[in-house]
């Protein structure tokens, strides 16, 4: 039986393993402190004890402290708060302020700069406190160098597609563990990998907004029941209560202090009550104090391709992690099987319906070379999707293909959970459709691609920034075809496709991106026979000298691809064979030629 053999093979995994000595010792030290091993009656490894466990003061030297600290920082900033950075000075202190801020159109022409300290006291209800300490955030946000977030209709809080990784990449901000918590290591950045996905996250929106998001959550801002109180100094105090789950008594109470004429909150206080976890009740009592500054920050444009950290090498991008890979050039769709082991499940069609290149988002101004994109996409389940497979995310790949950077999560306007998900019950025939708004921090341009990556068995979608110019079209035996020109890295190509936007079809012809003049780079598709290719810009017409006569085809300029070149495509008459491709200038004068399949050769000379 396969099951038995499988079981036997898997059992090879099951054996004692020695962890690293560093981990072994570190954990021992933690446990020894926690267990209070000096008290014999407290030894669980010798006998069960009835006496209550002694509660000891928490020590900062905890392996998990940065993890917890980071979580608390994040949660203190979360809880359904909406954008709070653009409060007009004349804004009245009233509950609507929170939502008003969320809805306010970005228009403040300054760069957010903030520093703050969180004093944290985190106590695990019961016998053993988890620990306490401080977490400090410092830094500034000065670049649209991360996924662009937007607020969705219905005041839902925008979601962040990932957690700490992005947090650590927000602007120049970094999380630090304070000296109080780790004396031997006074300051260090928190390892992103220790963040847990359910923890909320902080997003600093490009230049003009600060938002507090529930990472990985669909908690709507409207769940916050705000009250407002004008402070004696003329400032405003907003108090909101969040009900995370109707089935739980858990509450988050958030108090936001906004100073008079301030553009940012000066403090945020958050308390958690009645939060039950598997190991007990969690209480949070956190204050986040801002020292805001609205002074403009000098923004230095990033060097091309140097903004994004090398998260993934080109080699990584080629690994199975991103396979099976499908490619959509420009607008169009392709099918990917996210469950290749199951012929009855996993087929998804991903279609790029529209790609709009924006010069900015709202009134934000991108860096030179930064591209704002709005990509309208549709994902259709052609088969049942289950098992969590098929979730999608985006990667931006640098223009030279050297590295990739995770970008926006899949986003559907006005809806929750823009993912393919069995629990959403996405069935064959159903689809999700919406816009993604992305910011490309690396050099925008025809060399850059967007990659849509998958999880365990993920699709990878490569999308160009612009739709490919059509250089020819027609219909043969009732089958429509079109030829498009596009760029690959360092090359200019043409290809035949069947409509609409299907990648299948004839072959591709490629020439150098910087084409010599005159230049004719022809190719022939299979059946039906279509000739196509790219030329230098001085070629206005390509003449096919065939065995049954000449066929002229006008060259379409490819100036919109930013290259001095042209493309052409034409169906070869039935029964004809191409002897030469001849390039003619605007006056009909031959400027160059290339041999065709029927051209005489040494082995097959002309009669």
């Amino acid at each position: 039986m396969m099951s038995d053999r499988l079981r036997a093979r898997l059992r090879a995994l099951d054996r004692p393993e020695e962890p690293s000595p560093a981990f072994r010792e570190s954990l021992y030290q933690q446990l020894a402190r926690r267990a209070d091993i000096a008290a014999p009656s407290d030894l669980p490894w010798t006998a069960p004890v009835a006496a209550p466990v002694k509660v000891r003061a928490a020590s900062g030297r905890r392996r998990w402290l940065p993890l917890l600290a980071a979580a608390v920082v994040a949660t203190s900033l979360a809880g359904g708060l909406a954008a709070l950075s653009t409060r007009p000075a004349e804004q009245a202190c009233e509950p609507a302020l929170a939502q008003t801020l969320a809805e306010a159109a970005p228009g403040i022409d300054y760069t957010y700069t903030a520093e703050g300290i969180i004093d944290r006291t985190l106590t695990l209800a019961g016998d053993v406190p988890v620990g306490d300490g401080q977490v400090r955030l410092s830094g500034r946000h000065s670049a649209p160098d991360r996924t662009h977030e937007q607020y969705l209709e219905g005041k839902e809080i925008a979601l962040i597609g990932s957690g700490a990784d992005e947090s650590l990449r927000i602007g120049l901000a970094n999380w630090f563990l304070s000296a109080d918590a780790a004396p031997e290591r006074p300051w260090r950045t928190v390892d992103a990998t220790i963040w847990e996905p359910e923890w909320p996250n902080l997003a600093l929106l490009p230049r003009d907004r600060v938002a507090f998001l529930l990472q990985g959550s669909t908690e709507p801002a409207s769940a916050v029941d705000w009250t407002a109180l004008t402070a004696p100094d003329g400032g405003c105090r907003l108090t909101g209560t969040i009900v995370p789950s109707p089935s739980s008594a858990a509450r988050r109470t958030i108090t936001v202090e906004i100073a008079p004429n301030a553009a940012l909150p000066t403090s945020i206080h958050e308390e958690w009550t009645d939060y039950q976890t598997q190991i007990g009740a969690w209480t949070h009592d956190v204050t986040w104090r801002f020292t805001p500054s609205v002074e403009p920050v000098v923004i230095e444009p990033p060097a091309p391709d140097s903004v994004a950290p090398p998260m993934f090498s080109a080699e990584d991008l080629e690994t199975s992690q991103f396979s099976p890979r499908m490619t959509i050039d420009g607008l169009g769709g392709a099918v990917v099987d996210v469950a290749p082991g199951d012929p009855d499940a996993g087929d998804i069609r991903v279609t790029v319906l529209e790609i709009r290149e924006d010069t900015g988002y709202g009134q934000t101004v991108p860096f030179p070379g930064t591209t704002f994109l709005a990509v309208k996409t549709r994902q259709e389940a052609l088969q049942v999707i289950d098992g969590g497979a098929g979730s999608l995310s985006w990667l931006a790949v640098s223009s030279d293909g050297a590295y990739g950077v995770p970008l926006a999560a899949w986003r559907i306007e006005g809806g929750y959970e823009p993912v393919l998900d069995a629990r959403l019950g996405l069935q064959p025939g159903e689809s999700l459709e919406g816009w993604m708004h992305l910011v490309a921090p690396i050099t925008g341009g025809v060399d850059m691609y967007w990659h849509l990556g998958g999880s365990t068995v993920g699709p990878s979608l490569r999308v160009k920034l612009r739709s490919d110019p059509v250089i020819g079209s027609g219909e043969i035996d009732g089958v429509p075809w079109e030829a498009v020109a596009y760029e690959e890295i360092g090359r200019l190509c043409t290809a035949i496709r069947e409509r609409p936007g299907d990648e299948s079809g004839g072959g591709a012809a490629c020439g150098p991106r910087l084409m010599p003049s005159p230049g004719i780079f022809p190719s022939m598709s299979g059946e039906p026979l279509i000739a196509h290719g790219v030329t230098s810009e001085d070629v206005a017409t390509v003449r096919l000298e065939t065995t049954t006569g000449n066929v002229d085809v006008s060259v379409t300029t490819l100036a919109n691809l930013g290259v001095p070149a042209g493309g052409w495509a034409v169906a070869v008459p039935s029964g004809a064979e191409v002897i030469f491709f001849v390039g003619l200038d605007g006056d009909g004068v031959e400027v160059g030629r290339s041999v065709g399949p029927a051209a005489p050769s040494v082995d097959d000379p002309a009669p």
Partner: protein
Amino acid sequence: MTPVAQGSSEQSLTPEDDFRAWYDSTLPRVYGYLLARCGDTAAAEELTQRTYIEAIRSRQTFQGRSADTTWLIGIARHELLDHFRRQERDERRRIHLVRRAVETDEGEWQASDERQVLARALRALPMAQRMAVVLHYLDDLPVRSVADSMGRSVGAIESLLSRGRAKLRQQLGEDDDE
């Protein structure tokens, strides 16, 4: 269960010695259990830590009816299930789709190609399938228990196991002889 420090039977053990001996004797089993199922050292360490913290926190519940390692493994399984659930939620929310690959540390597995192959194959499974396979084939839980643990129907678990087997077969290059 009282582990005795090796070579020290005639000595008067301090509580620290007892604790150390208990820790040293159980740690490889607990860590090995988690590493085999997680496939990466970072997660295994994190879950090991959680397991021991939880064990110490709830040590009054240990009645000595099972070996202390068995008791610890039971706690570890709960932690593992929570981990899997979080990972599954990640998958569904497409969080860190690629981070896992960055985190993956196969250092522990370098010594054994076979184990490395198995670990990779296991990691390649969608999380729900992986949970089901781990609980059923590695932990020997009946399908009904797996269903209870995962909050799904027996039919759903059987389906997950079927797909998990197929995927593992594919990954391991085995023939379908079932």
